[in-house]
């Protein structure tokens, strides 16, 4: 088990810079998820840590030792690839024991370790099969088995679940999480799926265009996104955002947007300041009492059983609302919306940064 640190890491492919100076530390035993839209540089960062790409500038250290010039094979890491990259001509057993075999480990030790990993991953019945004889989920497990057979310092995962169907994905998500709780190996996990990030991570690094947007624990990112990008990337359905101007009068504050008046409660922002106001769908509700409301027209009603999702036209914007139960509203109906007090987020319109109180 080990710590990992990135220090001003940059990466260029030819003249194109794709990683623009990234620094952060991963603690020993931590499950760190790198998340961001496709093409933001997550895989590149992970591959630099794995030694599969050169580091253009900056340093990467494992356990305090800078590994920039250390060969992949000497970094003591294990990686699970999106395509699994199982050796097609080796059985499951040989795939899992390959690293140990290259290290000239004792035959009996290889067998014991492979057997133990197979038991953890419930792969025992398949040890003598070849990768082509396995289902997607089983291959995924073998790829993980290959990683855990030898206690590496760090596990690296690059979108390991994206080739699985939705149900299996959810199942493997919890299996990987359980595996981490059992082995406590430092893990760097790359995904574009924010749900995976939220459910699995100890901490999340949100990346965008080769830069880090925010690092933090899942719920901290959810509750206090640093900027509009994180606000809209984390959470599903995505946070509603409305562009407008802050108005303050007699101790109350509201957002004026296209003639609509959004009550904001106690939020930062000076009178007349152009801002973006954000509110999560679950913090909007059908107004059940009198008070400061926003009027809107229902466009779509989507019941999911326990909850109902409404798409509502408010002024020039469309907002999503998630409410518990099954309210009796129909498309076309005019309703009143209430914003849960204290749950709004305000961002500077120019920079997209969160306004701090």
């Amino acid at each position: 088990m080990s710590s990992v640190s990135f220090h001003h890491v940059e990466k260029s492919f030819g003249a194109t810079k794709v990683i623009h100076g990234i620094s952060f530390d991963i603690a020993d035993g931590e499950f760190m998820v790198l998340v961001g839209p496709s093409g933001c540089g997550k895989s590149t960062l992970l591959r630099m840590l794995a030694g599969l790409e050169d580091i253009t500038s900056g340093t990467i250290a494992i356990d305090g030792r800078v590994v920039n010039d250390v060969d992949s094979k000497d970094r003591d890491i294990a990686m699970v690839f999106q395509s699994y990259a199982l050796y097609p001509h080796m059985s499951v057993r040989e795939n899992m024991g390959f690293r140990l075999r290259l290290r000239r480990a004792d035959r009996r030790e290889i067998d014991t370790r492979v057997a133990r990993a197979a038991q953890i991953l419930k792969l025992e019945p398949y040890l003598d099969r070849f990768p082509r004889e396995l289902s997607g989920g089983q291959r995924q497990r073998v790829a993980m088995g290959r990683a855990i057979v030898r206690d590496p310092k760090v596990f690296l995962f690059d979108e390991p679940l994206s080739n699985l169907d939705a149900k299996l994905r959810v199942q493997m998500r919890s299996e990987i999480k359980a595996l981490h709780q059992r082995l406590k190996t430092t893990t760097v996990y790359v995904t574009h799926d924010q749900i995976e990030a939220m459910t699995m991570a100890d901490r999340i690094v949100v990346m965008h265009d080769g830069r880090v947007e925010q690092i933090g624990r899942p719920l901290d990112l959810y509750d206090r996104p640093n900027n509009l990008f994180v606000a809209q990337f984390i959470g599903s359905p995505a946070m509603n955002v409305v562009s407008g101007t802050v108005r303050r009068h007699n101790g109350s504050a509201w957002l004026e947007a296209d003639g609509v008046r959004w009550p904001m409660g106690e939020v930062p922002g000076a009178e007349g300041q152009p801002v973006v106001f954000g509110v999560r769908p679950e913090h909007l509700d059908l107004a059940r009492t009198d008070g400061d409301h926003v009027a809107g027209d229902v466009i779509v009603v989507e019941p999911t059983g326990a909850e109902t999702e409404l798409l509502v036209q408010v002024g020039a914007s469309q907002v999503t609302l998630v409410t518990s139960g099954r309210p009796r509203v129909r498309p076309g109906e005019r309703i009143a919306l209430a914003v849960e007090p204290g749950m709004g987020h305000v961002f500077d319109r120019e920079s997209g940064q969160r306004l701090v109180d």
Partner: protein
Amino acid sequence: MSTIALPKVEPLDPIRPKRRGLSPWQVWGVALLAPYILVFAVFVVYPVAYGFWLARDPQSYVRLFDDPVFAGAVVNTLVFLIIGINVKMLVALFLSGFFVNTRPWIKWLSILFILPWAVPSIPTILSVRFMLNPEWGLVNQVIFRLTAADGPNWLNDRWLALTMAILVHVWKSLPFWTMILIAGRLTIPPELYEAASVDGASKWQKFRFVTWPSLATLYLTSTILSMIWTLGDFNSVYLLTGGGPADLTHVLATLGIRYLRLDQVDLAMATIVVAMPFVLPLMYFMMKRLSK
């Protein structure tokens, strides 16, 4: 909520009714196959049968086996096939690994490299022959300039001349086989090499455990196919040495031509029939591989 009406699907007959005559599908099959079978009969079956008919006299074989040139040609053919082809394929295997790298200059080099394969045999092999001329050939002139000594008489010694013929053959067909093996290497997913790197494999181990298992079938098939083709390749020997010196560098392919020029058609055909024991096992291997 609306429901979607499912189209009614007629269940398939579990047992197809037996029909007399041909179904339209079969008629089309026969119609499309007919021209092929015709061409095959006219251009393959007939000449081969005619060849065998010409070589039907057992006396032809007695005379053939008595000809000392024949024994030499068999040995030369075996050397050509067993040493020449295997050296060529090994070099092609090595070069394909070199070219498959994506560095841009290697692309240009590979264009240069494919040239010998793309240009016609007759002028190129003849020009090699001129280059090897002991008195005024380019090679010996360079040797003379550099060492002030006379170079060897390249085409006047059996083994030297045969080696040169093999080299010409290698030079000529190496690009093709290199390309085939490059194509084979390109089908290996790059992540396998990355996984092997992470697993701690050296360059050699990556070849041994990733490249070779994926390439072995193609490599063996190519080797056999190349042997079959080489049995019929008479350019390299005929144009370079003409079978000389003193008919010592003939292979079976050029021996057939030699007998033809001596108006001994039956011996020429007998030579080809004698080559069958070389070809048939190779063909058998090929068929087995291809039908796997």
